[in-house]
């Protein structure tokens, strides 16, 4: 077996050194009733060719977005990632290293994390950021728990513009720790509504911009009002590319920012792994969950980086930790950081403008189709239309024509009132031809 370097002669020598007769003697502590005497009922080992054929056969049953006009978003986006990114993350020294517990031989990973944290802080307009969380949704949930720790209040209010998966994820975690949640009714232009639901128990309000319907909202006044009421403002961003064009959460007064970073550097990969960006005001630094990388000096006084403030973490604090998180999303954070450093603000702003322009071009083409009602008032690269029939059926009909035409809102949240709502994303990867094909096909299926 190609991954196992020992051969029979090695094993015999090693057993002799250990002083046992067979490898079975090393499993003596297993209760006899639980010892499997033969391999379980699964196929035997296979060569690369056979394995590759099996996986390829499954891949071939999927409709690849690389081959068709593609308008699916709603929390995960198809963007162009420079080939350099994937090349670098596959370097042995990045791919096959572990958490940087020995900083002297992990400065590669650590400097990248320090740069990543700085990029995230600047992108979100916040002073501090951590070394990444699992994804945007768990970052949002961790933000809510952090708000509880900070405010000692016990309720989270979530806007009707929050991605329903995020709402459900926050509910699951918040309820697990005994917090109350109030999820407001989904609405296209929903963020300001949270203010009406703040009371003295409200630890935080969670708003999203652009929200799940695509609506971009200036949160400046919401931030001020929430904070005046003693609640924290948690801003969720599921399309990080929007920060190249839209005002940052920090500028608008956010206390905590939870971002899905997938759009920069990370492949769609059917939903994961992604990378959660997490940033906060400096005063909340020690309440942040997850890993932090900090600058320090070595014995010669030279700059170096280490994981720090681990006294917040589970492996030191055990049942007193700020969170139970152990891993971050290191490799995705690396991918994000490389892509971000290639883009720079110049590239980011430019690609963001292209997203904006393409999405608005498609919106203009759809708006004139009879029966199609564009609902989103202001948006970046995604908007919602109300169709004259079930969005789910339309999407299936489009798929059968080889077009991946968006996300029916009911895919995320079951509610008949939204049966005809379709969320449409348009990124720089969409060509004019793709748009024409979409418009033509949509006309046919409506």
């Amino acid at each position: 077996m190609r991954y196992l370097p020992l051969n029979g002669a090695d094993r015999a020598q090693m057993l002799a050194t250990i002083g046992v007769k067979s490898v079975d003697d090393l499993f003596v502590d297993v209760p006899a009733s639980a010892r499997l005497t033969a391999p379980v009922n699964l196929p035997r080992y296979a060569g690369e060719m056979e394995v590759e054929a099996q996986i390829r056969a499954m891949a071939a049953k999927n409709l690849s977005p690389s081959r068709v006009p593609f308008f699916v978003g709603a929390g995960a986006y198809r963007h162009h990632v420079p080939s350099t990114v994937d090349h670098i993350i596959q370097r042995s020294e990045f791919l096959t290293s572990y958490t940087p517990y020995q900083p002297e031989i992990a400065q590669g990973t650590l400097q990248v994390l320090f740069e990543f944290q700085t990029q995230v802080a600047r992108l979100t307009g916040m002073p501090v950021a951590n070394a990444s969380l699992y994804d945007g949704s768990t970052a949002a949930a961790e933000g809510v728990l952090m708000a509880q720790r900070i405010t000692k209040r016990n309720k989270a209010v979530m806007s009707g513009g929050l991605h329903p998966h995020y709402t459900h994820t926050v509910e699951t975690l918040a309820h697990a720790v005994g917090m109350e949640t109030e999820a407001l009714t989904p609405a296209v232009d929903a963020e300001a509504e949270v203010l009406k639901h703040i009371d003295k128990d409200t630890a935080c309000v969670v708003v999203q911009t652009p929200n799940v319907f695509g609506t971009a909202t200036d949160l400046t006044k919401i931030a001020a009002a929430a904070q005046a009421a003693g609640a924290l403002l948690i801003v969720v961003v599921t399309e990080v590319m929007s920060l190249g064009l839209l005002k940052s959460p920090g500028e608008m007064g956010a206390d905590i920012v939870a971002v899905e970073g997938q759009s920069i550097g990370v492949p769609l990969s059917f939903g994961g792994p992604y990378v959660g960006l997490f940033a906060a005001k400096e005063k909340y630094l020690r309440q942040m969950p997850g890993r932090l990388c900090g600058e320090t000096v070595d014995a010669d006084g030279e700059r170096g980086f280490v994981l720090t403030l681990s006294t917040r973490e589970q492996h030191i604090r055990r049942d007193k930790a700020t969170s139970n998180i152990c891993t971050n999303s290191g490799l995705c954070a690396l991918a994000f950081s490389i892509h971000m450093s290639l883009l720079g603000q110049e590239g980011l702003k430019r690609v963001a403008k292209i997203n904006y322009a393409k999405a608005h071009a498609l919106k203009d083409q759809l708006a004139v189709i009879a029966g199609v009602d564009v609902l989103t008032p202001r948006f970046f690269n995604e908007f919602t239309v109300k169709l004259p029939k079930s969005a789910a059926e339309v999407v299936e009909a489009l798929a059968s024509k080889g077009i991946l035409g968006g996300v029916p809102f009911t895919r995320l949240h079951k509610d008949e009132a939204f049966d005809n709502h379709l969320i449409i994303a348009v990124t720089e990867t969409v060509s004019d031809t793709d748009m024409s094909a979409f418009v033509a096909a949509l006309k046919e299926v409506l």
Partner: protein
Amino acid sequence: QYERLIFEKKDYTRTGVDFADIDIMPSDLGDLVRGDDLGLPGLAEPEAMRHYVRLSQKNHAIDLALYPLGSCTMKHNPRLNEKMARLEGIGDIHPLQPASTVQGALELMDTLAHWLKTLTGMPAVALSPKAGAHGELCGLLAIKAAHEAKGQGHRRTVLVPSSAHGTNPATAAFVGYSVREIAQTADGRVDLADLKSKITDDVAAIMLTNPNTCGLFERDIVDIAKLIHDAGAYFYCDGANFNAIVGRVRPGDLGVDAMHINLHKTFSTPHGGGGPGAGPVVLSEALAAYAPTPWVVSTGNGYALEEFGEEASAANFGRMCAFHGQMGMYVRALTYMLSHGSDGLRQVAEDAVLNANYIKASLQDIMSVPFPDGPCMHEALFDDKWLEGTQVTTLDFAKAMIDEGFHPMTMYFPLVVHGAMLIEPTETESKAELDRFIDTLRALAATALATKNNADEVARFKNAPHLAPTRRLDETKAARQPKLTYG
């Protein structure tokens, strides 16, 4: 060796990505449009390549040498796995495409689930947890939901052995349980008597790692399971060390109710400097109904994704994250499984255990072993008793290993062993590499012991590493004056 931070140049005019000129102004966004200066530098592609390649060479990696991090399991990462994860139709598909367009992806998840269930002897699995600790959370939430459904909501205590991973008590506390510690016997296992004395009627579950964090198989595991079940509680098994027994022992046969599987540990998805992980949780019949949404269902003529859990199981405890988990890790893990097969996975466990025992047998005359009797499983545990009388600590010894080209073992864990040194070689090390490691450690140990008679030589250890990209780093300063971003 100094590698400049990308921010130090303060030049924000460059970019390493070419896009067409665009002059559309988003006038309808008004005030929402961001100002010009984001403070984000761009690097031309050659500059970026060099920055990251240079940085990478400052890392140790499993591809360079043994990485004997006990309880962290660094084994070979086959590149076939990476290739499969990047296939068109795998790496590029969107989680919200219509199910009709992702039948292969759902089949892949279903196949992975089948392998995990078969290997563990468990009837159900929740795939979506994004890491081991996330899996622990999933398991405990399922247990909590089950108790609540049965009117046992008063059960608010979780039993945790003193040797447990920090995530165990952290997770239990996180979901509102109080943690009760179970003592350990002199031979490194759960103290059954202590356990019995601590099982009260408010106990919700025990969280137990098996093989445990001392690298030992819990001989009384079946009895422990029975005690717990008899008390109306559930048995959560921390599956971090499943790689030691895969193919030889099914946790379902031991009485486990829930166990997360760190795909990166047992099934070799890459660690990538600390993640991403993936922590599917296998569940017993008793807990299966409480698994989180979403899940894959076979519809007879294909697969569907049950997103809301209303029809099949309204008992689900909720959703752990957006979308449906770490597909990129699923495909790598499944590729690894298919490559090894049932016979190969069994061999994995055997070779992992053989390698660990070989290290233990080869070092125990010079380094002290806290639990010398009987075999260990996949990792060999040493303590610092043998260093008594020297000024060399476990930390010093570990840092001195760096100068020899090896990554240190896990230090000071498990907490129950003084100055613990936990060595996990894994099955993907050759005998030649193990011998090189053993020879190096024996020589280094002899040098450490010789410092008893020569105080000057202590400095070699105290000041180690000498040959790494940096000298020993000041972690106290980092924590006292946290500096997490540049500028």
